[in-house]
């Protein structure tokens, strides 16, 4: 095996890992805030990809330009999901943990069915954009531009999330996470913070979806696979930790790429799952987890 092939695969894993990290960051944000695992996360990613696809079809704008619109749409979806479903699920008196799991799981099936109803089950993809088909040649290692752009946008989004966590709103988020009852005493509306937190988490997925749609096929079932990887990434990094999601995403992306290269492409997911289980043996709350 040549060195350039190894580098090619390693870079591919890195670029994909950044996407995994951003998808996971949205999930981790919501979990960290209110202890809810959103089992419809993959379906929200799928919605973001379809939104990008449809907007691209109608406006002809490049997916890169559609990021703000798609993330805004997803922000709205997140707030709506919180207000309509999660707020109620948090206030039930019995089996709260299970109600959350199955409300978001039912929502996932609902969204998948709706996508099938509107778009049919066929695979579709954005085949014309500024970047599609172009490559950057780095001394024999080729970087496909759509993936490279996606990775850069992911890094920017991570930076934005870190900045947000330092604003007044970010501190309110943190305070609500620490003690959801005490914040009411200092005039913070808990439900408003939770709704905005959901919006922020799903907007993050919106960014990832818009970038992913630039080089990945779209279908009603595309979310399931990314969702599973997102759960693994979040649990590996530690629930609620932004840094954990980033490190775990990269680790997962690299493990996937290396397993495909050295073992068997059909078993690439086994490799990443095995790494996750191995880490969990030594750090039961993930790499950066405290909860």
């Amino acid at each position, binding site marked *: 095996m040549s060195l350039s092939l190894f580098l090619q695969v390693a870079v591919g894993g890195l670029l994909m890992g950044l996407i995994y990290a951003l998808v996971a960051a949205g999930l981790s944000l919501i979990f960290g805030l209110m202890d809810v*695992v959103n089992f419809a996360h993959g379906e929200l990613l799928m919605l973001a990809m379809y939104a990008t696809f449809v907007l691209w079809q109608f406006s002809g704008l490049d997916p890169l330009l559609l990021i703000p619109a798609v993330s805004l749409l997803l922000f709205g979806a997140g707030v709506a999901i919180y207000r309509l479903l999660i707020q109620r699920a948090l206030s*039930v008196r019995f089996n709260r943990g299970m109600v959350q799991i199955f409300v978001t799981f*039912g929502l996932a099936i609902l969204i998948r069915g709706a996508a099938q109803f509107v778009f049919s089950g066929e695979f579709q993809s954005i085949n014309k954009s500024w970047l599609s088909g172009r490559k950057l040649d780095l001394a024999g290692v080729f970087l496909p531009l759509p993936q490279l752009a996606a990775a850069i946008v992911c890094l920017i989004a991570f930076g934005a999330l870190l900045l947000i966590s330092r604003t007044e709103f970010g501190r309110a988020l943190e305070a609500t996470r620490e003690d959801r009852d005490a914040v009411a005493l200092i005039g913070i509306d808990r439900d408003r913070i939770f709704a905005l937190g959901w919006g922020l988490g799903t907007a993050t997925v919106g960014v990832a979806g818009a970038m992913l749609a630039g080089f990945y096929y779209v279908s009603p079932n595309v979310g399931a696979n990314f969702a599973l990887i997102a759960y693994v990434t979040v649990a590996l990094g530690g629930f609620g930790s932004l840094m954990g999601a980033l490190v775990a995403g990269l680790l997962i992306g690299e493990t996937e790429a290396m397993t495909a290269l050295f073992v068997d492409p059909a078993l690439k997911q086994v490799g990443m799952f095995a790494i996750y289980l191995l880490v969990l043996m030594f750090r039961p709350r993930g790499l950066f987890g405290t909860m």
Partner: protein
Amino acid sequence: MEAVPARSAQTASPARRRRELVTGAVLLVLLALLPLPIHDTYTRNLIIITILFAGLAQAWNILGGYCGQISLGHSLYFGVGAYVSALLLTRAGVPPVFGMLAGGAVAGAAALLVGWPCFRLSGHYYAIATVVVGEIFYLLFLNWDFIGGATGVNIPYKRALGESWLWMQFRTDKLPFHMIVLGFAALAWLVAWLIEGSRWGYVWRAVKDDPIAARSLAVRVFPSKMAAAAISGFLTGMGGAIYAQYVGYIDPDSVMSGQLSILIPLPAVLGGVGTLWGPVIGAAVLIPLSEVSRSYLGGSGRGVDLMIYGGLIVLVALLRPQGLASLLAWRRRDARAA
């Protein structure tokens, strides 16, 4: 943490336990007679699948409901049971009646092997770890040529043996399989009934409600979880073996997919987690509804059936978080009295 701690470990009065056993027996007789006036294959098949899922959900309920360990990887035990029994039959000629027990035993052992590392994890970490373990074995089975890989295992009809209970093969008649799944579901229900009244049942519910408080009262938390996992895995594996024999063909997608890991607990969750009747009622409502909507609306491939199914899950989970079983009047009266 909940403001009002849930109290699962309530004492059920002996009278109520007797009443439940009698209700169970009456239901068993009624269900055994149910297919006699029904002759069309579709309905009979629907009833068999419903009863099978009632049994599987009850098996899950033993670990997920009574002991509170939300496993989302039960497809592994189902698949292991199905594969062990099917391979014993096709490779070694072992009758499925024994294969079913062997499948259950291997699945129970698998549950112990999974539980050993995973029970150290708590809450969502445990749930996601079980998803991942299930997914790993799904992928491994998919790529394992010795057991048929993605092509799966075909269980041929052996003409020489004819209709046989030992070999669990019946050419077209669905009635024997009705009795087999009914026996399986009754066994799962009976195990849950026994656990509910036994010392183990109390200990498990204490582990579910508050593991730290339980440990301070000298409850051995880890062995309790392992015992619940072994019993739950064994029963789920048995269900898998019966399913393999009933359908006559298995592959990783039909017996090990992650989807199945949700379908198994779903009746228990919607019917009532950690209750005797929850899985039964949940399956009786959910399975016919999903099958009928799929066969009438799913054919268009437009996802209407999925929308109804998903919407129903959301509604029941939000409106009846304690499960559909709580709608039964006598249960409410008991809950008030307690």
